[in-house]
């Protein structure tokens, strides 16, 4: 237990250090924040623009989609902030900085997770939270203990799933030095996809994000339960409550793959 606490302490220290690093460049700091906010709000603005024209999508109104958008984007922001080191991992392998990490007596996951928490990544939270608040004010949700808990679980499951994807993407750097955008399609494309209800997509695509990379599973089904909307795809309520756990399982599996990658790195040196 003390090992875990100690690791958490070191993790917090890593984060503090990286925030202070960024404060070193005060001049562009505010502008960067504003810019990030604008970029990250883009999709939300797009949602409002489109609902202004079309009124609804697949039977969902703008508030419901904003709710889903909020869950997905907060999940992603949390995951992204916690795994920056993995995001930059390809460069670290090339520059040899990963060797340095291996010469320190701490787990690679801890060191990479605490690598660099940038404000731009935190700024991604803002539109997500704003959308959740906007949705909550208009949807008349029942904030029972079960529903609140499910919301948190859904965000946690989503964050774990995204973090797992980012870790998997980083693991690829052990095999190829080429930056593979393909995994970005899964993360960023996953955000784009799952901020709309999954029933609007073609079946093969829907299945991919339900079973293959279960991003829709951890956000779409729980939000149906919270909003009290019956699933047009016909899933039972208990499934909607348990679905977010899949994300946590996915992260644990990804970390196993990561450990395999580290072992391979240590035997090939590249």
């Amino acid at each position, binding site marked *: 237990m003390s090992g875990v606490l100690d690791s958490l302490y070191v993790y917090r220290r890593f984060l503090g250090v990286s925030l202070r690093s960024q404060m070193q460049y005060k*001049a562009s700091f505010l*502008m960067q924040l504003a810019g990030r906010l*604008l970029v990250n709000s*883009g*999709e939300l603005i*797009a949602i409002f*623009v489109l609902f202004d024209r079309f009124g609804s999508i697949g039977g969902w109104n703008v508030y419901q989609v904003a709710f889903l958008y909020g869950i997905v984007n907060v999940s992603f922001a949390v995951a992204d902030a916690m795994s920056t080191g993995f995001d930059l991992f390809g460069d670290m392998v090339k520059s040899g900085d990963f060797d340095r990490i291996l010469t320190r007596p701490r787990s690679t996951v801890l060191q990479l997770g605490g690598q660099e928490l940038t404000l731009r990544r935190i700024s991604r939270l803002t539109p997500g939270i704003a959308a959740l608040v906007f949705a909550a004010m208009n949807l008349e949700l029942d904030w029972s203990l079960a529903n609140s808990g499910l919301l948190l679980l859904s965000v946690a499951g989503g964050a774990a799933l995204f973090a797992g994807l980012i870790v998997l993407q980083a693991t690829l750097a052990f095999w190829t030095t080429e930056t593979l955008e393909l995994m970005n399609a899964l993360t960023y494309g996953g955000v*784009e996809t799952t901020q709309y209800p999954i029933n609007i997509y073609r079946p093969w695509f829907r299945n991919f994000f339900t079973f293959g990379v279960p991003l829709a599973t951890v956000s779409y089904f729980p939000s149906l339960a919270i909003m009290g909307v019956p699933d047009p795809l016909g899933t039972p309520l208990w499934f909607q409550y348990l679905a977010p756990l899949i994300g946590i399982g996915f992260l644990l599996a990804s970390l196993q793959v990561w450990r395999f990658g580290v072992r391979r790195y240590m035997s090939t040196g590249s």
Partner: protein
Amino acid sequence: MSSYWAILSARFRSLLQYRAAALAGLMTQVFWGLIRVMIFQAFYRSSNAEQPMSGSDVETYIWLGQAFLAALPWNVDTDLRAMIRTGGIGYELVRPVDLYSYWFSRALAWRTAPMLMRAVPLLVFAFVLMGMSPPVSLGAGLAFAVSMCAAIMLSAAMTTFLNVTMLWTIAGDGVMQLTFGLIMIFSGMLVPLPLFPDWSQPVINAMPFRGLVDTPYRLYLGHIPLSEFAGVLAHQLFWIMAFLIAGRIAMASALRKVVVQGG
């Protein structure tokens, strides 16, 4: 101009080395295009109201956007950024060339090489498998080609301007982020501009960003008739000149009080 060809060729060669990355990039954009097409199809299914643009036009607009995505000024020159951070920019400043023209041709090459690599296979894919439609007429096709060239020039002019701003603030990300946000929203990349609320159209049309995406694509679709071609092209050219001049002024004044960071 010779530096342009040299950089273009070098960029091509370095891009070709990364075959997996090229393929992955292509698949990413196909995937991305599919997501967007499906979302827009769902919106069009959900409403019977008359829209300023037909559903199939929007699909073609999206595929064009995916094909020419790499031409957008979505980042600063990472080499230049590194040079400014480390102080190596000092060497750039003592070269016997007009630095601004050199940076501009560099930016132009930076934008063209990856765009050409992706545009061709993506357009083939969209035509053959996704039912993307050809230009409405030969004239529309020609107008699109001319306007697309102007779009790339505009993109390079913006990139150069952004590169220059890095001389002012070392972490240059600020201006870049702000500009990038504006580009994403007001170029048409996220939502085709005609779908924006009617009251916002005059503002959006005055801004430079539509010249990167919306203007050429709507010429292609015939959504902007050929009779308006001269007007929209002039709009693009005006903003190209504006960014070039602004960048030149900014650079001159940055160099006057040059503080080479870190040196």
